[in-house]
């Protein structure tokens, strides 16, 4: 078998391109999500798009539109219930997104289109249609441009809301903008990796980058590069082993995370162990690595 075989098929080339673009946009968002501590939000919104997709399908509207509306609804409903009841945010999120997902499942029994459901749940990057691919690419690129234009504001919003407000940023606006961007990213990735695994694409690259660098600009760069490489690698490998493409993409992401976790130059497991050992030997030098570690972002 030739290593260049996959590139001879146009569906593989398209899948590689879509995978890379989706990987890039998810990676950018993931840096902000990890910083803000909103990993669960990605999970919740991605499950909550299901009823929107089903309703849009029944009404003959674009699926992406329904998905976007339903994802945003989940986020807003979560925020509203949390501020109007005594239940913790993570619990509210769990209730709202499972409620919506279940609603989607029940509605789905009225639609007889098995293939579509599987594609939405687990992605269908190898069989993606031209129109879907175009939609994915446009959504992803628009999201990417908006995030990059507003990256400083969003960074401040995620890092310290109080400070962002005090210097005059419209934090409420940023909150909704960020949620919309998140929903748009999920909609863009839906066709490629499916709504169940999209949360992986939205969490892992940011975590990997966080383990490798202290500067946010660099973190964005690292996350995007790692994620693009991992997505392409996943698509490429799935061709040879004939396995679920979405699963391969996510496992490639996990592989890079594992590498960063163990071998990261400063925050890796090995590096920290070595530091501990050397600081144990030379007690006088203790504190210095500690400060270096806390001094960053």
């Amino acid at each position, binding site marked *: 078998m030739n290593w260049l075989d996959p590139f001879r098929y146009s569906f593989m080339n398209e899948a590689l391109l879509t995978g890379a673009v989706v990987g890039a946009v998810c990676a950018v968002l993931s840096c902000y999500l*990890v910083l803000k*501590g*909103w*990993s*669960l939000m*990605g*999970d919740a919104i991605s*499950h909550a798009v299901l009823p929107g997709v089903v309703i849009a399908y029944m009404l003959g509207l674009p699926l992406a539109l329904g998905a976007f509306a339903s994802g945003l609804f989940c986020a807003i409903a979560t925020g509203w*219930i949390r501020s*109007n*009841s*005594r*239940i*913790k945010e*993570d*619990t*509210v*999120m*769990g*209730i709202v997104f*499972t*409620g919506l*997902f*279940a*609603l*989607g*499942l*029940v509605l*789905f*029994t009225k639609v007889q289109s098995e293939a579509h459901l*599987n594609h939405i*749940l*687990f992605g269908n990057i190898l069989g993606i249609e031209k129109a879907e691919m175009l939609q994915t690419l446009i959504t992803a690129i628009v999201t990417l441009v908006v995030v990059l234009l507003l990256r400083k504001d969003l960074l401040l919003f995620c890092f310290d809301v109080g400070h962002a407000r005090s210097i005059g940023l419209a934090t409420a606006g940023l909150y909704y903008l960020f949620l919309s961007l998140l929903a748009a990213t999920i909609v863009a990735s839906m066709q490629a990796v499916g709504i*169940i*695994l999209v*949360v*992986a694409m939205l*969490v*892992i690259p*940011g*975590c990997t980058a*966080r*383990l490798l660098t202290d500067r946010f600009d660099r973190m964005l760069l690292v996350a995007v590069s790692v994620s693009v490489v991992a997505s392409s690698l996943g698509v490429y490998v799935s061709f040879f*082993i*004939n*396995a*679920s493409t*979405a*699963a*391969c993409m*996510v*496992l490639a992401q*996990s592989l890079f*995370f594992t590498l960063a*976790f163990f071998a990261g130059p400063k*925050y890796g*497991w090995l590096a*920290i162990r070595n530091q501990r050992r050397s600081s144990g030997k030379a007690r006088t030098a203790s504190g210095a690595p500690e400060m270096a*570690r806390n001094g960053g972002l």
Partner: protein
Amino acid sequence: MNELLMPFHYEYMVKAILVSGLIGGVCAFLSCFITLKGWSLMGDALSHAVVPGVSLAWLLGLPFSVGAFLAGILAALGMGWVKANSRLREDAVIGVVFTTFFALGLLLLSLFPSNLNLRTIIFGNILAISDPDILQVLIISALSVLVLGLKWKDLLLFCFDETHARSIGLNTRFLHFMLLALLSATAVAALQTVGACLVVAMLVTPGATAYLLTDRFGTMLFLATAIGVSCSLLGAYTSYFLNGSTGGCIVVLQTLAFLAALILAPKHGLLSARVQRQAASLS
């Protein structure tokens, strides 16, 4: 009238309704501890993390609950270890670990096509539950109820105030592990009824609903269990008429119960809060 009794004419429906009710009750009982502890995300994570265990168990010919339980425990330990050894936040670590496990499960299922249908794992398939599977569910439920019944006071203290629990000499590490084990076990049982994506609803919604209705933990346990059992029974029953997705019906009902409590609860509901506010502004 006869129409309404139709589901009870079928043995598989009666079984499905009864097993759903049992699982709903056990999950709801546990959900009081989970919501109090703030472990909703953990419930979601473990229910996804058990998937590779299910497929491995099938490949090796073991009972699926053993594999699922071990995968759940492994994931929980993995999360704890990564969290302790990196500077990442807990929610991010949970996200990384459970999605990795889940992807691994998908990979195994796509590499070794089996009669284990992916959709069964994702959505549950209580209508076609086999007798050995029912036995597994019964054993899991009995063990969970036994442990919870014996240890509920310790667990309550642990969930409510870990530091206090430690200071009065409780073994909090043990309790932590026990709660994780209970969570994995019930997630495995619930996987059968509602599937991996909706397990978290069974493990969170009844507890949160009961929390809106009462301030006393004993009453909360009772209410949550009652809500869990009745929603599951009714959901499984309704799914016969809707012709599909038992898990979806159960969880939609639980969500409706939650919404009703959110609006109408006597003390913590939205309506009573509004009335209180008006009364306060009048006086």
